């Protein structure tokens, strides 16, 4: 009546399709932030970073894209995501206001080591955000990553897939 030893045999599973097992995974998403370039002269200088994206996720219109963005564009993206989505948006690397004050010994915000630190922080930020299923639904993220330029007068909306 009572079984002495429980039956612990595995449940039946469908054999896996070989192309699924050995083919490219469906979650390929790579984002690099690189090539910082400082443009402009004197007081009107600013640094832009190249954002390169490679993916096979259907939600991204372009499977490869390359755009240039500056720190204030990242700040704009973060603000949009916080307001439009329910995502807890990770922090950006610091604004470094102190570095913008005059009479510094180094190059302030155009200092090589500072730019490198910032570049790393921006890359971490984008990887965290772009992989979030809810953030991927926001128009602002796609515009930031793949459109030629960021239109701050856009209409916030959600991406809908057919």
């Amino acid at each position, binding site marked *: 009546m009572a079984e002495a030893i429980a039956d*612990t*045999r595995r449940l039946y599973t469908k054999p*896996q399709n070989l192309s*699924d097992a050995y083919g490219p*995974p469906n*979650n390929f998403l790579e984002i690099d932030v690189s090539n910082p370039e400082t443009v402009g002269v004197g007081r009107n200088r600013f640094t832009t970073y190249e954002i390169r994206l490679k993916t096979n996720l259907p939600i991204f219109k372009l499977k490869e894209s390359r755009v240039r963005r500056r720190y204030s564009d990242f700040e704009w993206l973060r603000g949009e995501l916080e307001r439009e989505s329910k995502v807890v948006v990770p922090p950006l690397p610091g604004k470094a206001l102190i570095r913008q004050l005059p009479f510094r010994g180094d190059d302030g915000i155009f200092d090589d080591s500072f730019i490198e630190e910032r570049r790393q922080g921006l890359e971490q930020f984008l990887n965290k955000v772009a*992989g979030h299923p809810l953030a991927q639904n926001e128009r602002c993220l796609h515009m930031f990553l793949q459109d030629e330029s960021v239109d701050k007068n856009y209409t916030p909306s959600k991406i809908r897939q057919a």
Partner: protein
Amino acid sequence: MSFFGFGQTAEIDIVLNDAESRKKAEHKTEDGKKDKYFLFYDGETVSGKVNVTLKIPGKRLEHYGIKIEFVGQIELYYDRGNHHEFVSLVKDLARPGELSQSQTFDFDFTHVEKPYESYTGQNVKLRYFLRATISRRLNDISKEMDIVVQTLCTYPEINSSIKMEVGIEDCLHIEFEYNKSKYHLKDVIVGKIYFLLVRIKIKHMEIDIVKRETTGTGPSVYHENDTIAKYEIMDGAPVRGESIPIRLFLAGYELTPTMRDINKKFSVRYYLNLVLIDEEERRYFKQQEITLWRKGDIVRRSMSQQATIAAQRYEGSNSETASARAKEESN
């Protein structure tokens, strides 16, 4: 016990008749320590002796009555003053009078009902105990003896598997399956997770056993969640079509049977929480309730015992033939 000048005082001792043969079970106390207590099941008789020992030889002990009670009660920690007694039996052992020497009294609570299992939790405690009391003018002398009650179940007639497809649209679709919905405390959870769509970067997957103790009613309901176990079932990134097996042995964990709405005061429920963690430490989870029950070790003995009890509860039946028939059936 206090010695007020020349007053007589006494010690009470409760001893069960079957103290030698009765099994003891370990039970956690409120402060987390484990102690052993005599184990009883529903319907079993609780009988024994109360020994009253006079401390000062030669002096009489005046009293207003000696009694023994069998109590089953629920105690909510946030409302300690109110004990909710769901079983309360009294036997008077001596009428008000005097004891000139130490004396022993027999007691017998026959086939006493013990409907719920003993439980000591985070916010509530359910316990059974014997309490012998000598009533006196100024201060009573009393002694309590806790016992542990376990409720046994038979194999459930219907025990369907749990099979469900869940996910996030266009991101992650999985089908999870657990072989049963009702597991006994020494059972094994056998299951599998089948990946239908994986567009996120999964780092690992684990299954947790969560215990939820619910106390209070209406607007003041309070849930206390406790993760009893965390068991990693997958390390690495799965792809579509992959199946991950689950084999989780329950005997290694401190579990109680599922207790639903006990005397309308509290519940203890168990959930399996399937958790997937991605590379950015985001957690995706699905919680599913399971029913835990306690399986009896020796089924035969309780069957004939229960037949005897049943025969005695109904008037007119012949208890001897009923238990003999039951013994034949179980052989």
